[in-house]
């Protein structure tokens, strides 16, 4: 009488299909065409190699600080492969590989990390939002897009991403709650890489899984091996199918490890051991997926070697295009900072624009005190 247990759904599952030894669970193996599988590997490898190249570009000062996405390729590409081009993709900032798959040219993303707003402009026809830096805030945009799809009667879904650190933010909980209450077609994918810069997962939550947060919002939740692209794809596909049928949102937790620093400004040696990094590197998503493709006869060693060469060429070409754009006078024109704030530029902004324009003109007319101080040459002004 006085106390009776309330039965709650607590069937949080862990899904693994392709394990770290490349052993496949035939029962659970998702149906994917050879072309799909090749495409998935292509974008994982492109992101991996581009990341490595970008680290060099950053060290050389050719792009700015950026977060590498090593260890996140399976979650990003696996989930993004489960939605269509008319669905929406709302990333955080470690979905580099998935954005490439969605149609963002590499040179555009290089522009973003290279300090140009043009890099945050989604290409025409790509239903994506750009990178989102303030963590968890993008989950509400995804939820709003999902609510709008429902209002419009569109059978589309939204796929959105966040990290384990983000799950401590209020916006994460508000987004899950809104999506749940309005049964919005949103798939929330957590890239649980076990670190928020230096702060470990144990400081983000005092519970066994992140997936179980779903229970308190009355939505399905699942934890998957985040280095197993087939598990990520399968779990996302199920969630997408549910959402498309009007059955609401899902929370997917991909468990992985950030095998590099948080960003190019971070030094992980201060907060974790090389042994731990080594252990997780051995669980790398690309190694096991490559073996899977080889075992299935989809990609043999010579095909892989030629793919590597193709990707090297692709990256080289993208870097060339990026550097060309980054040197473009029009793109470098500082007066454009005033041009996109409002549909029509108000008078007060026009005045500020003119002020900067006149200042720049006066400075390039002859060396003034500014040049003497900063050592800049007058000729650098556009």
């Amino acid at each position, binding site marked *: 009488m006085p106390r009776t247990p309330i039965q709650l759904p607590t069937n949080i599952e862990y899904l693994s299909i392709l394990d770290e030894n490349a052993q496949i669970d035939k029962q659970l193996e998702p149906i994917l065409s050879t072309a799909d599988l090749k495409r998935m590997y292509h974008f994982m490898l492109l992101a991996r190699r581009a990341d490595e190249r970008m680290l060099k570009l950053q060290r050389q000062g050719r792009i700015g600080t950026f977060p590498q996405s090593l260890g996140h390729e399976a979650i990003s590409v696996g989930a993004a492969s489960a939605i269509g081009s008319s669905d929406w993709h709302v990333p955080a900032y470690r979905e580099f590989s998935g954005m490439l798959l969605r149609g963002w040219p590499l040179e555009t993303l290089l522009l973003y990390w290279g300090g140009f707003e043009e890099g945050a402009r989604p290409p025409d026809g790509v239903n994506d939002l750009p990178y989102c830096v303030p963590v968890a805030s993008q989950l509400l945009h995804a939820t709003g897009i999902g609510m709008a799809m429902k209002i419009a009667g569109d059978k589309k879904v939204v796929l959105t991403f966040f990290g384990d650190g983000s799950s401590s933010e209020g916006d994460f909980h508000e987004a899950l709650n809104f999506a749940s209450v309005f049964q919005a077609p949103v798939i929330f994918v957590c890239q649980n890489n076990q670190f928020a810069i230096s702060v470990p997962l144990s400081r983000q939550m005092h519970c066994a899984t992140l997936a179980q947060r779903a229970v308190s919002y009355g939505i399905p939740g699942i934890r998957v091996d985040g280095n197993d692209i087939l598990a990520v794809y399968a779990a996302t596909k199920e969630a997408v199918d549910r959402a498309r049928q009007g059955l609401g949102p899902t929370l997917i937790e991909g468990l992985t490890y950030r095998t590099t620093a948080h960003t190019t400004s971070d030094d992980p040696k201060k907060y974790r051991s090389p042994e731990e990094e080594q252990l997780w590197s051995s669980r790398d998503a690309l190694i096991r997926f490559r073996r899977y493709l080889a075992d299935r006869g989809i990609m043999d060693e010579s095909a892989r070697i030629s793919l590597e060469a193709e990707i090297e060429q692709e990256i080289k070409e993208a870097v060339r295009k990026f550097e060309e754009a980054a040197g473009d006078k029009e793109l470098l024109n500082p007066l454009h900072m005033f041009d996109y*704030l409002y549909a029509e530029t108000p008078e007060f902004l026009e005045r500020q624009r003119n002020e900067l324009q006149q200042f720049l003109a006066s400075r390039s007319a002859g060396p003034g005190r500014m040049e003497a101080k900063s050592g800049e040459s007058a000729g650098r002004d556009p």
Partner: protein
Amino acid sequence: MAEMNMAKAINKALGEAMAADERVIMLGADVGVNGGVFRITEGLYARFGEGRVIDTPLAESAIIGTAIGMAIYGLRPVAEIQFAGFDYYNYHQLESHAARFRNRTRGRITVPMVMRAPCGGGIRALEHHSESREAIYAHTPGLKVVIPSSPRNARALLLSAIQDPDPVIYYEPKSLYRAFKEDVPDQPETLPLGQARVVRSGSDITLISYGASLRPTLEAAEQLQEEDGVSAEVIDLLSIVPLDTVTIVTSVKKTGRAVVVHEGPRSCGIGAEVAARINEDSLLYLEAPIKRITGYDVPIPYFSKEKYFLPDADKILQAARQTLSF
């Protein structure tokens, strides 16, 4: 023409906007079945249904954050925050996202949405229900900020705000909701954002105000005429962003004297910006320093003492006389 108060005029505008454009939807806490705690959305739920007048969970960040997503997808959301004193929860969504999407995507993604919230003191409300923090939003590049002062301009400005292609903060001075009635045309009318109005012509001094402070400002102007024979020009800003510098400066060039009046705190407030623009464009026309009658730099006191914080006609009158006799 029909005579109505500001609450009714805003309600009228919301109904008109929703009837004219099916992309317009409303969301917020208590906006649906209840018709809003100030009854501003009354009847809209019955008229347009729960799909377009959405009662949300109580979470301001999510109300604004999801409105941003809806706007990106092509809707025209009008989000209500129940009191301006609670919109700090969602400030981050406005500052980091609503205000920036157009700029950071070079015009590819835009956020045509309105945040409505009742603002200001004067109704003996409880703590956290009387704030005037428009300066925060005026300090956020990418937003527009509008504050009406009468039923007719409230209706016209709200229709303009909803049609605007950029995010607009629409603050409703709640002490004016039922303060007085005014004729409002039957046919929808709009007012361009960014245009102030000269609501009283004069030649000796310019009094600049907006929102609930406009009424005591006009009272002071009448008293100046009657008691001192002074002709005061009164400007109603209506839009805080974009601020109509031309109307302000044109008036000050004529009168040589200015007092700025508002409820929000003084330091780095709207009055400071108005004074700066007057200095930039008409310093040599000034016969006296610009005075500010504003809320003080303290949290608005509980209601037993709020009247000492708020601008009133006596304070404005005194400031005007000091300016005139400088």
